[in-house]
């Protein structure tokens, strides 16, 4: 009796698996043959105002998302579907095929370029500078950071740059991975738990304005010079080329500048 039950149970499981398997294959074929737009899952960061954040209606929002929506408007063969994902899980979600495109002001670096596809056109200047507590003057360049505690987001390009520095130098930087966005970094630097942070001039201004101006930016030289790009899974070359074409158009006709002013009060290509 017991054996019978087990047998039927297994049979049911296998049948169920086969049915769902066939079902999904059929659905895939249908969408390929029809002329309906191809659905692209987009992951946008969840905590980086004004670029990627979650708005009052619990929807992904920000400059990155606005640019993507405009791109989608000009590329009717795709249908972008947005979801908010924490920065440190964004690339993991690309790996796991949960999404095909990720954005949170991603910068290029060799490790990322090995694994993923970047758009060739950037959509925002992303030059970064060192941030210290107000009045502090001992930190001017990356070499001054040796032995100091520096905060950065896990999975960010800043982290990659700092880690690379540590690999090639004996005098190491003490890298502190920060989870909770700008307020934590601000608080840590002002209270001396961190010696320095790294931000773009725009982010620095917003953070300082929001929390009461306890930070200084190092004006003498840049920490890193780069731009923000959209990042895609390795096999999405067609989508990448389409986005590049549209981004060029948007730069030419001023749409990108308009969006940039709307969200960041400055043009996309200035620091």
């Amino acid at each position, binding site marked *: 009796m017991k054996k019978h039950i087990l047998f039927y149970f297994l049979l049911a499981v296998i049948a169920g698996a086969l049915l769902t398997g066939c079902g999904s294959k059929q659905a895939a074929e249908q969408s390929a043959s029809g002329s309906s737009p191809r659905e692209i899952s987009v992951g946008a960061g969840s905590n980086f105002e004004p670029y990627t954040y979650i708005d009052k209606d619990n929807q992904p929002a920000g400059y990155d998302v606005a640019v993507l929506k405009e791109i989608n408007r000009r590329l009717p063969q795709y249908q972008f579907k947005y979801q908010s994902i924490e920065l440190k899980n964004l690339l993991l*979600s690309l790996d796991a095929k949960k999404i095909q495109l990720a954005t949170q002001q991603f910068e290029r670096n060799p490790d990322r370029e090995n694994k993923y596809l970047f758009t060739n056109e950037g959509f925002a200047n992303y030059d970064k500078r060192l941030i210290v507590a107000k009045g502090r003057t001992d930190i001017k360049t990356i070499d001054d950071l040796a032995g100091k505690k520096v905060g950065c987001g896990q999975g960010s390009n800043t982290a990659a740059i700092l880690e690379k520095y540590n690999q090639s130098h004996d005098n190491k930087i003490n890298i502190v991975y920060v989870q909770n966005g700008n307020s934590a970094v601000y608080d840590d630097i002002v209270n001396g738990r961190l010696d320095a942070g790294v931000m773009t001039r725009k982010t620095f201004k917003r953070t300082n304005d*929001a*929390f009461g101006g306890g930070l200084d930016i190092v004006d003498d030289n840049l920490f890193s010079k780069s731009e923000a790009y959209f990042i895609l899974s390795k096999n999405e070359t067609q989508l990448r080329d389409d986005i590049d074409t549209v981004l060029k158009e948007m730069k030419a006709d001023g749409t990108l500048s308009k969006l940039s002013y709307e969200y960041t009060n400055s043009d996309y290509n200035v620091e």
Partner: protein
Amino acid sequence: MGSLFDIRLVFEYFPTIISRFHITLLIVVVAIGVGLLLGLFIALARMYKIPILNQLSIVYVSFIRGTPLIVQLFIIYYGFPLLLDEIGIDVTQWEKLYFVLIAYGLNNAAFMSEIIRSAISSVAVGQHEAAYSVGLSRWQTLRRIILPQAFLTAFPVFGTRVVTTFESTSLAFTLGILDMIGQAQAIGSRTYHELEGYVVLAIIFIAVSMILEKIFIYAEKRLILNRR
């Protein structure tokens, strides 16, 4: 503009954050429900030493109890679909919430099975023997004699488990679920005020946990009084 902490914002955020309470509640209810059913099944498989199922249950329980919940969440959300993809089943585009519910359910099943198993073992062997001797079947014995007695032993631990599950739902945001924690973080990064959201969360969590504890203590007293 502002400072790091503004007490007025605590009141302002409160309604927005509590509006996501149903997600937290859903996770708890599903986790406890699935946990109870699957947990009873696992406990019985182990009690009656059903071949294969018994060994599987032992491995399963020790795996779940030996790994952090967040690891299980990541394996189920990111790893499991890749595995299914290999055999041709595509679940990568499922709602996140389903994965979270599965993960919390499976996690609770392991803990529940141990609670149930220990409670059943605590019923004296003589009770089984007496039941069999008056001609009850194994299932009848379990349902009429053993489970009602085991229930009383399991109840206080069960209550603790519910409260623990409630608090552990805070991990669901790491996958991007907009529960109360997710809402607090979303507000935080949108308005540059995070601390206030966490204060709201602390208040809600303390209040709900205390209410749950009170309910369980009350129910426990009533149950024991009825039995004696």
